């Protein structure tokens, strides 16, 4: 009898006695409780998955009827994985129900089978857990910019010169990370402060497709606790630097004016830090600074790093476009969130997302609570991947939670 209870309790905690068990066909009606959530899909999620499957069937039909279309084919392969998982899920659920029925039945004939049934149930649950995870992952909508390269912007926060130095350190950290990954990158813009080894602004362009997906959770405030080089009395200071991750919509290589042409004439004001006078052959100016102002939003971008004004302008347009795309997306997400329930947690832009503590040789990510005692490895980029992995896992879980709340 005791064994019997052990089985039933996790499934339906309110049911204690064999008497009740025999009167209710439990396995059919059980509510999705906390423990079940990881091997049963929420009915609404299930419905969504099923509707996606019908969509896939339609796609398949249109592909055979109207000929090949690469975009559709890609979408179909994505849905194929979901459909096969769903098929397996639907195959396993009745098995689980049957086994459960067997396990809880009072029939003396099946009593001897109970042991085997229980073992089998555990197996099936294990399988289901795996499949449900896969289905949920497939149901999480992919970020619209996931496959794009990205821009990383670094700016010092509170903490004066030390913050500027930390911004530089952060930039170096990502640069060595990119070098280790063998991803192509270029430094678009660095504004160094004189006297110390710090920066007031730095922009990196990461040209690897999909870099945005990998690095997008890096955007936010990074906090540092250490004894700054500018400190004379050996006190530990806390300062911060901000990282902004933007999707890079233009490659910036092949067609240098593509970004410029994506704006309507008059939408962007171009200011050239011009030399006064006749210009042309009369003067030979090296001033190449360009400032763009996007009139509808008031966003400004200045660029002066390159000796060529044309290149400065092209880069500035690229950055402006990335900032606008990010802003648009953020507004869209905020809007959606407002219309949903308040419980939805935010996966991006949370404040103070990470602390780098030098005296303790520790890096802590405040969102996923992951702590790593390998600060040097982190700062030289070699163990940053571990950190990024745990953040990505956390983000995925959050997304899935959101999925359940919103459905």
């Amino acid at each position, binding site marked *: 009898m005791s064994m019997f209870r052990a089985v039933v309790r996790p499934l339906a905690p309110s049911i204690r006695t064999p008497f009740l068990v025999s009167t209710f066909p439990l396995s059919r009606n059980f509510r999705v409780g906390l423990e079940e959530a990881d091997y049963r899909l929420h009915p609404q999620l299930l419905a969504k998955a099923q509707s996606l499957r019908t969509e896939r069937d339609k796609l398949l039909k249109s592909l055979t009827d109207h000929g090949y279309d690469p975009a559709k084919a890609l979408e179909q392969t994505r849905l194929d994985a979901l459909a096969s998982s769903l098929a397996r899920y639907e195959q396993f659920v009745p098995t689980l129900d049957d086994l459960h029925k067997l396990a809880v039945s009072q029939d003396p004939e099946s009593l001897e089978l109970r042991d085997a049934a229980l073992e089998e149930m555990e197996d099936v649950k294990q399988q289901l857990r795996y499949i449900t995870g896969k289905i949920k992952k497939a149901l999480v909508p992919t970020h619209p910019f996931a496959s794009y390269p990205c821009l990383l912007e670094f700016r010092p926060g509170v903490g004066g010169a030390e913050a500027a130095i930390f911004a530089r350190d952060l930039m170096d950290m990502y640069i060595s990370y990119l070098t280790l990954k063998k991803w192509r990158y270029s430094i678009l813009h660095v504004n160094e402060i*004189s*006297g110390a080894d710090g920066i007031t602004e730095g922009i990196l362009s990461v040209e690897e497709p999909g870099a945005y997906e990998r690095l997008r959770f890096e955007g936010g405030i990074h906090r540092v606790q250490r004894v700054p080089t500018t400190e004379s009395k050996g006190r530990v200071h806390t300062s911060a630097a901000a990282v902004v991750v933007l999707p890079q919509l233009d490659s910036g290589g092949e067609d*240098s*004016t593509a970004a410029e042409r994506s704006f309507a004439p008059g939408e962007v004001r*171009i200011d*050239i830090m*011009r*030399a006064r*006078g*006749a*210009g*042309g*052959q*009369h*003067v*030979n*100016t*090296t*001033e*190449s*600074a360009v400032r763009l102002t996007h009139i509808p939003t008031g966003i400004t971008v200045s660029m*002066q790093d*390159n*000796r*060529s*004004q*044309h*290149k400065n302008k*092209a880069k500035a347009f690229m950055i402006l476009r990335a900032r606008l795309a990010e802003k648009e997306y953020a507004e869209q997400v905020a809007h959606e969130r407002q219309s949903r329930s308040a419980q939805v947690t935010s996966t991006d832009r949370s404040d103070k997302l990470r602390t780098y503590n030098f005296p303790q040789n520790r890096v802590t990510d405040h969102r996923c609570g992951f702590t790593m005692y390998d600060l040097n490895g982190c700062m030289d980029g070699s163990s940053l991947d571990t950190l990024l992995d745990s953040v990505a896992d956390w983000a995925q879980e959050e997304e899935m939670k959101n999925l359940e709340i919103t459905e």
Partner: protein
Amino acid sequence: MRLPPARVVRAWRESPNLAQLLPEVRSIANAHSELRWISEYVREKLTDRAAKGMKVSDNDVQRMINRLCYLRGQKGFPLQYLLGSQPFGDSLDIQCRRGVLIPRWETEEWGIKVAQGIRRSHPFFTEVQRDSDYTQVSVDNAISEHEIQTFGVLDLCTGTGCLALLFAEQLRPPKAKFVYVEGVDKSPTAIELARLNRGNNARAFEGYGTAVVFTTADILSFDITTDQFDIIIANPPYISEERYHSSQHITRSVRNFEPRLALLGGPEFYRRIFQLAREGEVPAVVCEIADEEQLREIVEECVDDEWVAGGIRDSAGVARAIIAWHNP
């Protein structure tokens, strides 16, 4: 105008090199940029030297930076002569030498505007060649077919070759079509430099059917057949005698270091360019000009009823180029 002493002191406190640069570059922000470019250049150059096995000390780096800042700020050397080159267009790096005009950003700006405009709207670039067109080409008319399939650009007063190479870079011919760019200059030094630049920047247009040719010729006294070209572009000398000698209009660095030959000129060049265009029935002409006044003069003098003309302004708001095309 005299530099405010406070500015010099402020620059000096940051770095003596900045103060050294000020007399020529005037603003601290600009001095910062130039110092950075000079330092980058010196470091790169000395790293190259060290890689070749020569001994290089930190002292050498600083000494070389000091020397370049001195030449730039105190003697007024153009930065492009000191660093040896000027970036141009999307990927070109144009070598600069004494005796040849340094490419200006205004030239780059209108050059890109015009080239992109042609590439985007000229039927030669927008009409895709159909496969059936190949079969119609017989041996007899292959040569004339080839002419039809080639877009010709004539760059007069080419100097470093920057405009010719810019058009070669920007005008990418579609499949089975060709772009032919010819640069002409009176100065053999300029043509030699232009050929060097063509070699250095061949990467920008190789793999396409693009050819760039440079010829030494004085356009004022030589006859040039122009009937194979679709556009004439030019950056002729356009500074008048009067302006050349007034320090209000022309900076010291330009007068002292850049060639008179590439600066002093005026209407005679535009007259000749339009005459060449008419002789060869070239459908379009684009030339750099000094200002609006000159634009009006040229339109009055050289553009007749068969032509339509307009101006292109640069980002500083000055009328910088005249664009004229044949009215069919």
